[in-house]
């Protein structure tokens, strides 16, 4: 009897592991397929029997990044993501602290309003922003895309950072203030060093969101400020789709994000759930 139970348990365990491996494989293979495609020649890529083994080529990368100027878009993406991150960080972190620590009128409504800016479909904001930014005369500039991306990064930073501040006992500031610090002094010298890992994680997440964004960059950016994702539709032309070059661009645009995912390991759950789930 005990033997049978043990056997059932082993079979169960094997089945579970098989299911997990299959799942991981299904999740990974389509992505891997794109990476492979980026190293294929046109002939290999369009082969009617999918090729897993082939003679790899590097030709697609210079083609798309130099000839089609994706290098420029890569730099634009970097500039825009980092700028919108920096703006959001400098103004968002103090705001998150205030929401965590101070009581003020309509605080709940304010906090909710910040969330709602993130949750609305980008299409809903793209039109009025287009009108507004054309009135400001900044349509098509980097600034237009940076400002649009702050709707994403700022609300994210405030929501997540408020959670990190909530986790710190208020006695810390009280002690610091009896030692003669002002509120700002306590915030700067006592609290910020404690939440530094949180700030780093939150920043990396915001960077990813801005880096991946498509619609605002497409509508509000011009040829001069185009980001990598917004440049993708340009490779689908009436003369055909440049599959290998698209794959090469896809490989390069996703690589930094995957590296960041490994760095962010511990914070993935908190970041992806908008701070609703703390691990």
């Amino acid at each position, binding site marked *: 009897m005990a033997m049978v139970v043990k056997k059932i348990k082993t079979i169960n365990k094997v089945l579970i592991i098989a299911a997990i491996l299959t799942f991981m494989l299904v*999740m990974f*293979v389509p992505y891997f397929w794109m990476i492979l495609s980026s190293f294929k020649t046109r002939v290999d890529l369009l082969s009617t029997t999918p090729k897993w083994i082939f003679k790899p080529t590097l030709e697609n990368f210079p083609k798309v990044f130099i000839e089609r100027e994706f290098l420029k878009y890569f730099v634009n993406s970097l500039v825009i993501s980092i700028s919108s991150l920096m703006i959001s960080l400098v103004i968002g972190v103090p705001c998150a602290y205030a929401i965590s620590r101070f009581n003020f009128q309509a605080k709940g409504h304010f906090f909710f309003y910040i969330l709602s800016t993130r949750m609305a479909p980008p299409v809903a*904001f793209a039109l009025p922003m287009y009108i507004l930014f054309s009135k400001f005369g900044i349509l098509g500039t980097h600034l237009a895309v940076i400002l649009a991306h702050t709707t994403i990064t*700022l609300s994210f930073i405030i929501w997540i950072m408020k959670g990190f501040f909530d986790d710190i006992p208020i006695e810390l500031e009280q002690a610091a203030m009896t030692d003669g610090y002002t509120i700002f002094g306590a915030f700067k010298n006592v609290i910020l060093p404690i939440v530094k890992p949180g700030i780093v994680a939150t920043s990396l997440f915001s960077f990813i969101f801005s*880096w991946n964004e498509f*619609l605002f960059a497409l509508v509000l950016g011009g040829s001069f400020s185009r980001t990598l*994702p917004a440049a993708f539709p340009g490779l689908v032309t009436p003369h055909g789709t440049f599959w290998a070059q698209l794959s090469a661009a896809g490989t390069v645009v996703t690589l930094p994000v995957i590296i960041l995912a490994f760095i962010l390991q511990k914070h993935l759950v908190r970041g992806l759930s908008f701070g609703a789930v703390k691990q």
Partner: protein
Amino acid sequence: MKARTARWIAPTMIILFIVSLMPFFIALNYSFRDISYTSSRSQGQWVGLDNYRKALSDPEFLHSLGITFKFLIPAVLFELILGFTMAMLFAKSNFKGIRKLIPILIIPTIIAPVVIGLIGRLSLNSEFGVIGVYLRKFGIIESSILGSVKLAMPAIILIDIWQWTPFVTVILLAGFLSFPKEPFEAAAMDGANPWQTFKHITMPFIAPLLAIVTLLRSIEAFKIFDKVWIMTQGGPGSSTQTSNIYAYRLNFMHWKLGYGAAIVILLYIVSFLLCVAFFRYLNREQIKKEREVIFYGNGSKKN
């Protein structure tokens, strides 16, 4: 509001005024006017609620709303079922290095949706795609998937499931791994069968997380644009034209700004309601947790 608080939050308020409040009121203002860049008669005359009346009886808009939910409901449902099952299996496997697998597992969720769309087209292509070719060989499909009125939407749903199931899995797995052991041990001692344990212990524990994941997924699925734009642009015909795609076409291809603004405001209202549900739910959970802290006398650390 005290001057002290104002100094901390004023910069945020200024930026949000520019990027959120002003755009909202511009859209609201436009939605009551007849404005179009492509018609010389539409010079911005005030038309009151006409645009809204038109929207609510516009078959194309209503059709696009239908398409949105035809996408949203099966996609979110399958993601929840599959993600829940996988999270439970991950937790059951008792494999120590499980957290190390998460960054690989999460790849589809975390990379740019534009690339997800590209991968969808690349693998579903019936001429050379790694999935499409085999589907055709086994006679499941005859020609192009994304070019078919019947199959394009299921294909987008499939790709969405691929993209977001890891998200559901990872969030729920965090919940499963943080379960206290005692209730399960007690249930085992009392001779509860697996189904009873699942129903009376596992479910109540995971329910709040499930609710959060469902809301977050619904909000996000309602926003879908990038993937569809890359995969089908709303076609063939209007078979995958979600309301976001419709709004984009109206505003940025037909330049019917007044009518488009009314559509945009209606979309904003739907997402606002979803957002209210999420916020209310979080607050309720927060209050419950604080009560528990007081109840167990673990001391309250917050002001």
